[in-house]
């Protein structure tokens, strides 16, 4: 039965997944175990995305199924969900830019790969990044941007991190829209990630190094 929920989620079978969850809840199963299976299913989704078997619509749909599943399970939860293992990442779309599609995909992929992502949203002021890094002690920062104006916002954000004395405590990755290796140099970031999987690879490398 456990196998079934994992597969139903991985294969994006919404109705089957919901039915399995309801049945298991009716059988008084530990809700944390159900959520654990759902998470395993999402990991498979993430792997399939990494292998170019799944694309953005599939990620979006899996997220939606997970939301429905979580809502079914939530009333039975007595304690908090399991903690993440791989470390914290402060993530956001930089000041002046309100695009979120690309950011949300990377956040999703980091999340299913076991990171705790502090998603600051879009049009994030420079100071907010600095404050969150201080507050959380996150060793990794992700700066997203779609427009060319983000080149300067990223540069300013990284300069502010430096001015706050945090630059040697964090690794910074950039990505999105018109970003490139050239822009990485311009902004002073540590790396440019071409797509969501590149972001995950970088985060894993950096989390391991810490």
């Amino acid at each position, binding site marked *: 039965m456990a196998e079934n929920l994992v597969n139903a989620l991985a294969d994006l079978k919404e109705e089957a997944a919901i039915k399995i969850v309801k049945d298991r809840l009716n059988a008084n199963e530990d809700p944390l175990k159900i959520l654990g299976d759902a998470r395993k299913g999402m990991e498979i989704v993430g792997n399939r995305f990494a292998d170019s078997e799944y694309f953005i*619509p599939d990620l*979006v*749909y899996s997220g*939606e199924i997970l939301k429905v599943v979580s809502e079914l399970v939530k009333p039975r939860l007595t304690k908090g969900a399991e903690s993440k293992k791989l470390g914290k990442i402060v993530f956001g779309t930089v000041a002046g830019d*309100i695009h979120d599609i690309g950011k949300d995909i990377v956040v999703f992929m980091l999340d299913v790969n076991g990171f705790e992502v502090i998603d600051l949203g879009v049009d994030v002021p420079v100071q907010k990044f600095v404050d969150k890094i201080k507050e959380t002690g996150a060793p990794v920062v992700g700066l997203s941007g779609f*427009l*060319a*104006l983000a*080149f300067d916002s990223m540069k300013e954000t990284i300069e502010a991190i430096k001015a706050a004395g945090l630059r040697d405590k964090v690794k910074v990755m950039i990505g999105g829209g018109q970003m*490139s290796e050239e822009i990485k140099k311009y902004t002073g970031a540590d790396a440019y990630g071409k797509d969501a999987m590149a972001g995950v690879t970088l985060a894993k490398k950096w989390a391991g190094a810490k």
Partner: protein
Amino acid sequence: MEKKREDMSSDEKQEALFQRWISPKDPEGNNLKFQNPQAEKLYKERATRIKDAIQLKKKPDRVPVFLIPSFAPAFYSGLTPHDVMYDFDKIIPAWKKFYLDFQPDAHGGAFVPSPGKFLEILDFNLYKWPGHGVSNKTTYQCLEGEYMRADEYDTLIHNPLYFFSFTWPSRVFGALESFQMLTPLAGLTEMYGVSLPFIPYGTPPVQTALKALMEAGDEALKWIQVVGGFEAEMPTLGFPAYQAGATKAPFDVIGDTLRGTRGIMLDMYRQPDKLLQAMEALTPIYIQLGVGAAKMAGNPLIFIPLHKGADGFLSDAQFKKFYWPSLRKVLMGLIEEGVVPLLWAEGGYNSRLEVIRDLPKGKTAWLFDQTDMAKAKKALDGIACVMGNMPMDLMTVGSTQDAIDHTKRLIDICGKGGGYIMANGAFFDEVRWENLRAIVDTAKEYGVYKK
């Protein structure tokens, strides 16, 4: 004796539209008066060069070069997007200066600065714009949302114009919220009941909305007098327009501003047939949008920005099922009427090249942003003109020598045998102006075809 339009083949219709474009008329129907003989010569050379690059029948004299700006002309004149959206008098001098200084082969109109006060009057929710959610120095940006609910496909399918006339405006314009009370006037077309659909117009919320509409109309009119004037003047200075108007891919219409990215992607799973039917219903509207603009302007070029079919957004199977068929129908509908769709493939289109080859020869032009141009040229060789690919990072932070080298490289890769227009890959705001100049100048020197 000229052949009547309805008797023409699509080839002939295209040629006729191109000829109207190459030999433009003034509003009275007389031959356009150019500001000087040099401007006339430049205009005709440029328009012919672009036509040759697109039709693939003969090699142009050289590679044409376009600059396709967002707010760049404002920045170039030291103005902000806010300045030109709120003070229309600032638009023309800035936009004119931009084209006159850089001398690309065509101009793109001055429609980028949408009228700010108009947006304020109607309380436009769909975008943030300078001073309204983003800074004065920042371009406007779309706020995606579900402006059409998942259960509203039937309305859209059966009565798209109703949806666009009442439902959609009531959601994207705060000042028109009361439009949800309105109904089409086609009801009982008899004396009996003739006043019924007018009842909502007597209510205070609708009357407030109507007042806002009148004010907004004033602003829109003021604005078009300015940007329309630009459109009329630029040819007299030697610049043909690279777009008569724009239309969209049905998938993007639904995915961008009706259901949103998330919404349309869920619909692909939960109600794929409704989504397909809705795109089918929108297809004739978006053909007509392009055909109407091209005929009115006497210019075959219709711009089509492509968004959600890019690499990574959809799988191959999803692209072939959901994105391409309705887009192809729009393209074929335009082509049938002699219109030349100029498609802007934003992002990467590497995985789509084999699919988009399925088009008649010399009828479309494809502006690529980040696609591998060698692959694009190979795939579309003998089928369509390829354009673009000058990267944003190079224009913004690269050295001038890099810009020159890359321009030459692109001409080497794509220019062979004609069928290439040098252009930027993505719309730009503030860049290194000397790089822009280098791109245009290099294309003009290095892009000359030997006889």
